[in-house]
């Protein structure tokens, strides 16, 4: 990669990429892949799926590069694309995940209370198996608010939903999540 681009701002790299310089876009990918992989990793089921979602996000960004006006930092713009792509992925696979047996969640929770000191990885496994039973919008809002620790305003900005809508969905999501973890159904 050409090191002369390294000191350039994201906005300048976007302009140069739009003029046909592939190296400039490759540098944008290099700078932001970590963030995109982290977001995709919250929603993906496996390593290859993280790669697929991340590729999808950057391809969308490349195709929509002309729509970036520089009003917000490039990272925010890219995060919005990332969140919407993850949301689309959740909606597409909603049907297959709904079929995860409820016992898989409850057995794990019965055997493991968070106070028993099990590992963060184990906690994530339990939470993931509960999250798949939520509606895509609920899963998205829980992930962004509770795991990524975004504010309601940030979530509204990322998803395009109103702040009121985010709050309502967050409330429903928590309620459903509590029911699932207690061994009941989501509703």
């Amino acid at each position, binding site marked *: *990669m050409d090191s002369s681009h390294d000191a350039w701002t994201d906005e300048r790299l976007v302009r140069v990429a739009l003029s046909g310089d*592939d190296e400039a*876009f*490759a540098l944008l*990918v*290099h700078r932001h*892949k*970590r963030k995109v*992989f*982290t977001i995709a*990793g919250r929603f993906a089921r496996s*390593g*290859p799926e*993280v*790669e697929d979602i*991340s*590729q999808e996000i*950057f*391809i969308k960004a*490349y195709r929509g590069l002309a729509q970036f006006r520089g009003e917000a930092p490039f990272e925010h713009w890219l995060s919005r694309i990332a969140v919407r792509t993850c949301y689309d992925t959740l909606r597409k696979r909603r049907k297959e995940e709904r079929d995860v047996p409820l016992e898989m969640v409850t057995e794990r929770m019965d055997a493991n*209370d*968070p*106070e028993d000191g*099990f*590992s*963060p*990885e184990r*906690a*994530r496994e*339990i*939470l993931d198996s509960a999250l798949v039973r939520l509606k895509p919008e609920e899963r998205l809002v829980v992930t962004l608010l*509770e*795991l990524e*620790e975004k504010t309601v305003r940030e979530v509204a900005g990322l998803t395009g939903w109103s702040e009121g809508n985010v709050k309502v969905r967050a409330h429903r999501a*928590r309620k459903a*999540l*509590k029911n699932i*973890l*207690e061994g009941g159904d989501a509703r």
Partner: protein
Amino acid sequence: MRDDRDDRLDRLLALVRQAKSEPSPLEEGFETRIMARIREDRERKTTLASWAWRLAPVFITIVVFLGALEYVALPPPSADLYSVVAEGGEEEHFLRLWTGE
């Protein structure tokens, strides 16, 4: 109103937040794979466009040929149907048309 279940959920979420997000090994060479895919997309679009341009003369030739064929091969048009109907001779007209007389 918060209850035990909220506390339990919060403890679980706090634990999950602690789970380290290690850099994925898939990040290695990711730029190269993305740029390869972008170039592939671009080449595919260029190939499609170039084929469309290459095939354009063929389509134009076919259209001109069919136009010429219609002009040369088809019989001259008979009297228009409106005037035939107005004269009350439509049955005779259709009979001639079908028998080729």
